[in-house]
């Protein structure tokens, strides 16, 4: 084993493992908080555990982890209960109730902490916020062959074990009760009707959230806990519509966030020539935010870019259909074909219109004929289909929606683009004998064949 490896194993691996486990526990549970609009429960709990910790400390007089854990857990569960009480009796919305609760709890914690600090006791509020990730060490053996002996494993840092078992518990809970959680999240009323106790599931989830908050934040600090309860789940939610995929994705994102964040915090400054590392938990939070931002922009289904592209494609396709329809109407009026300028005058000169015309040219639906523009046979068939749905809609609007014949054109202009073949057939079935629209113009048949060139 090289000294470098040994150093990595003793200094870097324990914090990485702790952060990964803590992130995993929070990330997996967070899915259900985000979906149930309870994202900020983690925020509330992680602020309010402070007095629990300090009281446990003041009572026992030591930093015994189990006492601190119990104190924090009591404070966490108490927060959930007090928020519910204030919401019900104080008639405040959940957000305000949480804000009132956790700020009072936190203030109490800071006050008690000052009392403890005055007694020269090391209990730093910063640890609560940023965690003590950098202080987790492990002393691995110098040789690989004695690596998996029981003596070595017994020296595993407590934080690794605590967060590891919490991650395991969270994953088991979500795996075993996936069906129940899904139902209780999306339709609590149905869940209750099917004989599940939705509120039991709710409280079980809340207790697990409180427990993983408490387990995680001693090691990684409350800020990372809050971020991990929300960011991976929110990121995954932008990438998929299926809950199972979302949970798996959020777990992957949590692991990636923790390792990437630690590397950026611990190694990147050294690579760039600095002596000391940056706050690893802060960096993980920043990475979580970065990954979320990437998903907001680049998600193939829900990303800003994808949505914008869809909108542009739709605008172009509408512009193309409008142009074809306009040319078709010119043909109905007489032999004269419009010039490019006339077309642009009616349709406008916006970018989608130009792109739409170009698409129609490229597809061979229209051709230039000197200064004017003509429909090809292919274009005429496409145009007939657009005009058909336009006039069918007009007929429908007049007969069934009670609109006046001279008022339906604008609405039909919009509806013609969203009429699929099946909608069109259904519209036509309503009025089998209709051959003309309310203004007396012929409705092109389905199997339209061009008569003229």
């Amino acid at each position, binding site marked *: 084993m090289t000294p470098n490896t040994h150093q990595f194993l003793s200094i870097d691996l324990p914090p990485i493992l702790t952060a990964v486990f803590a992130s995993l526990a929070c990330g997996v549970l967070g899915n259900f908080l985000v979906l149930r609009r309870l*994202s900020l429960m983690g925020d509330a709990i992680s602020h309010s555990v402070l007095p629990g910790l300090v009281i446990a400390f003041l009572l026992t*007089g030591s930093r015994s982890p189990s006492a601190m854990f119990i104190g924090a857990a009591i404070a966490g569960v108490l927060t959930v209960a007090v928020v519910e009480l204030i919401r019900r009796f104080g008639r405040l919305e959940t*957000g305000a109730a949480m804000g009132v609760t956790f700020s009072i709890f936190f*203030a109490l914690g800071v006050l008690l902490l000052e*009392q403890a600090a*005055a007694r020269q006791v090391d209990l730093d509020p910063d640890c609560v*916020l940023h965690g003590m990730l950098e202080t987790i060490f492990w002393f691995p053996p110098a040789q690989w062959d004695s690596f998996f002996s029981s003596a070595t494993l017994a020296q595993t840092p407590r934080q690794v074990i605590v967060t590891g078992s919490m991650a395991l518990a969270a994953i088991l809970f979500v795996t075993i009760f996936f069906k129940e959680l899904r139902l209780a999240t999306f339709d609590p009323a149905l869940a209750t009707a099917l004989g599940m106790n939705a509120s039991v599931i709710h409280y079980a989830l809340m207790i697990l959230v409180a427990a993983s908050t408490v387990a995680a934040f001693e090691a990684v600090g409350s800020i990372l806990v809050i971020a991990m309860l929300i960011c991976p789940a929110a990121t995954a939610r932008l990438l998929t519509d299926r809950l199972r995929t979302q949970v798996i994705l959020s777990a992957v994102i949590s692991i990636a966030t923790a390792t990437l964040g630690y590397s950026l915090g611990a190694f990147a400054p050294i690579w760039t020539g600095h002596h000391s*590392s940056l706050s690893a938990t802060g960096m993980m939070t920043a990475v979580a*935010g970065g990954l979320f931002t990437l998903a907001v922009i680049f998600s193939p289904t*829900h990303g800003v870019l994808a949505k914008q592209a869809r909108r542009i494609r739709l605008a172009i396709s509408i512009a193309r259909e409008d142009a074809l329809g306009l040319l078709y109407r010119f043909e109905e009026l007489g032999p004269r074909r419009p010039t490019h300028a006339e077309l642009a005058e009616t349709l406008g000169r916006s970018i989608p219109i130009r792109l739409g015309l170009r698409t129609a040219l490229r597809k061979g639906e229209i051709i230039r004929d000197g200064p004017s523009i003509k429909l090809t046979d292919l274009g005429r068939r496409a145009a007939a289909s657009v005009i058909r749905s336009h006039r069918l809609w007009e007929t429908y609007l007049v007969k069934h929606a009670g609109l006046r014949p001279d008022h339906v054109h604008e609405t039909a202009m919009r509806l013609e683009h969203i009429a699929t073949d099946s909608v069109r057939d259904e519209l036509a079935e309503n009025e089998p004998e209709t051959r003309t629209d309310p203004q007396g113009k012929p409705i092109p048949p389905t199997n339209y064949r061009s008569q003229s060139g």
Partner: protein
Amino acid sequence: MSPHAHHPASITDVSAAWPTMEELARALTLQAGFNPTVVTLGTTLLGVAAGIVGVFAVLRKRALMCDALSHATLPGICLAFLIAGVFGWEGRSLGLLLTGAAASAILGVLAVHAIKASTRLTEDAAIGIVLSVFFGVGVVLLSLIQSLESGNQGGLKSFIYGQTAAMHASDVAFMAALALVAACLAALFLKELSLVCFDDTFARVSGWPVTWIDLLTMAMIVLVTVAGLQAVGLILVIALLIIPPAAARLWSDRLTTTLLASAFIGGASGYLGSVASYLLPRLPAGSVIVLVAGAVFLVSLLFAPRRGVIAGVMRRAALNLRVTRDHAVRTLLEQGPLTTADLTRFGVGSRLWVAPIMWALARRGDTARSQRRWSLTDRGRRDAARLERNHRLWEQYLMQHADVAASHVDWSADAVEHVLSPQLIAELERTLASSTPSAGRK
């Protein structure tokens, strides 16, 4: 600024040196010296400003937006400090740091809006993301500052937990201006603000500039937050904005009263909190201010006349009492004289609950007791007949107008007859005058 130097004997020693009455009176009347007076005035005015602005934040359901906003100030503070360092300015200059804080707070608000508008995530998730990520970036920057130069960043941490003692006379002037502006804006735009708070859709369709009114509120929240950073720190500044309005709302349904009460609670918390932290050693002012506000909230939650927990419990008990009394009287009318045990058997209530009620009825002259059996007096009979009539009327109403199956009528009629108002009874009599009695009884 602490008037005492107290050295604890051990870590379990929780004793404190209590101030004398004289010191208390001096601190309360702002005569304890220049510095404590400045702090007390500053926190009081801050409390008033936050109390006023917070009402709109809470009513507009923006409570946790304030939290996101205050956490989002940290990277701005750190960046301002770093930039000042690059240009060689005085890094601790408060104005510069607070400008940075305000800028990144505004960025945070915009980020929440952007996430809400461009993704399918809900507001709470957007708030949580902005809150944690901005704060995380702030923590990274803080560690960067720490690694660049040691010892010089001490002032920055005081923004997280607050440091009232660092308040200057100029800060008090700022707080006073802030409170004044908040009060004036609230008074000037009371109609607009209340419209937007209670029915923003209506305000929007009536042509009110809802977006601008919201922006105005948001700007005021940013100002209060930035002002509060120094006093209570960025984690607890949300308490100043939310707790006074939450407490005030328990006392009143009227916006003007709520505003005044909230401003008063905020001001009083700031005043009492800073006085207490001056008098008692080792009490951090920010936390004490929040805890005073929290105590006011707790008292309000328990004792508010209509919305308080105790008032609610009393109301429910009074209703229970009336329900049991009415049942007992009606059962006696139907069944003739009965013992308390009989009444329990007829489902009126448990013996321990029924017995005192029967004695109370006897004192009023509605019932008389002979050979352990209760019977109705003439007066009680009249009362019972009225109740019975209401019950039948309600039965009819449910059957004819609410499509309830005849077999279910009696059950729900028992539950609701106690809430019938005289007007409703008159109306039922009118509508059902011609109908025949139901369920085979008269």
